[in-house]
């Protein structure tokens, strides 16, 4: 990794089937676990958000009756990790999602769905829903430090003990 620059990115195409959501979580959490200043509970948050986005993408492909794959893009920036989930479904309006009855209302039990997007909004640091009739991209960012391997560049080690490996943890 070039000091001061942004890191790499990976792209993963997954078949739009339920059994692949676990793989998407695994890839993202492996990537995220190398980042500095991303606490374990934030890693759990990201896993849930990725799971929700992939679940919605797979459902969108089912409704659109397409065999296209869902695309998962992970971008490593110095100050954040960005995960984008793209589908080729028919899109939706993120501003006009149906609201659930309040939790105190017995009717709340009639709604098993619709919790994914509110969860994504709460769990990640930034999220953007880009949707049209051609598909949807959910772009989620978690703020964190650079990856631990990136710190092998001594320029990035800013304390007085550049060779203190403990400091890299």
């Amino acid at each position, binding site marked *: 990794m070039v000091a001061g620059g942004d890191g790499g990115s990976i792209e993963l195409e997954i078949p739009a089937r339920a059994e692949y959501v676990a793989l998407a979580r695994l890839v993202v959490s492996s990537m995220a676990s190398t980042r500095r200043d991303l606490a374990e509970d934030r890693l759990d948050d990201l896993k849930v958000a990725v799971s929700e986005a992939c*679940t919605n993408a797979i459902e969108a492909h089912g409704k659109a009756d397409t065999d296209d794959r869902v695309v998962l893009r992970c971008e490593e920036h110095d100050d954040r990790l960005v995960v984008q989930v793209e589908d080729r479904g028919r899109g939706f309006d993120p501003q006009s999602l149906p609201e659930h009855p309040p*939790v105190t209302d017995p009717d*709340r039990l009639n*709604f*098993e769905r619709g919790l994914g997007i509110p*969860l994504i909004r709460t769990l990640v640091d930034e999220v953007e829903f880009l949707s049209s009739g051609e598909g949807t991209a959910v772009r989620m960012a978690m703020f964190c430090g650079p990856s631990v391997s990136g710190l092998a560049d001594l320029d990035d080690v800013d304390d007085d003990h550049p060779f203190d490996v403990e400091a890299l943890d």
Partner: protein
Amino acid sequence: MDLDLDVTERNGVAVLAVKGEVDVYTAPRLREKLVELVTAGQHRIVVDLEGVEFLDSTGLGVLVGGLKRVRSHDGDLSLVCTQHRILKVFEITGLTKVFSIHESVDAAVAG
């Protein structure tokens, strides 16, 4: 990916211990198990989530569906969960107010 579902009975209450990851792929099996219990006349159910490593909104939806099902028979479905990462999704979605969530199976069975 494994999801283990194990049912035991305690004082007339069915205790369903869930182990593994609950997501869009595995949640249908949890739903089937809950339907199976209710169909067999078991309307007091405790779902023990202590062995759950991951749970997203699909899992939450199945539990909401299970609660609705037992309530329609004047029964109850309560949860056992002390794991912060699992409780968090219940808190964000407000479902901590819908379910009674206990710290142990004993407490849940005592209701």
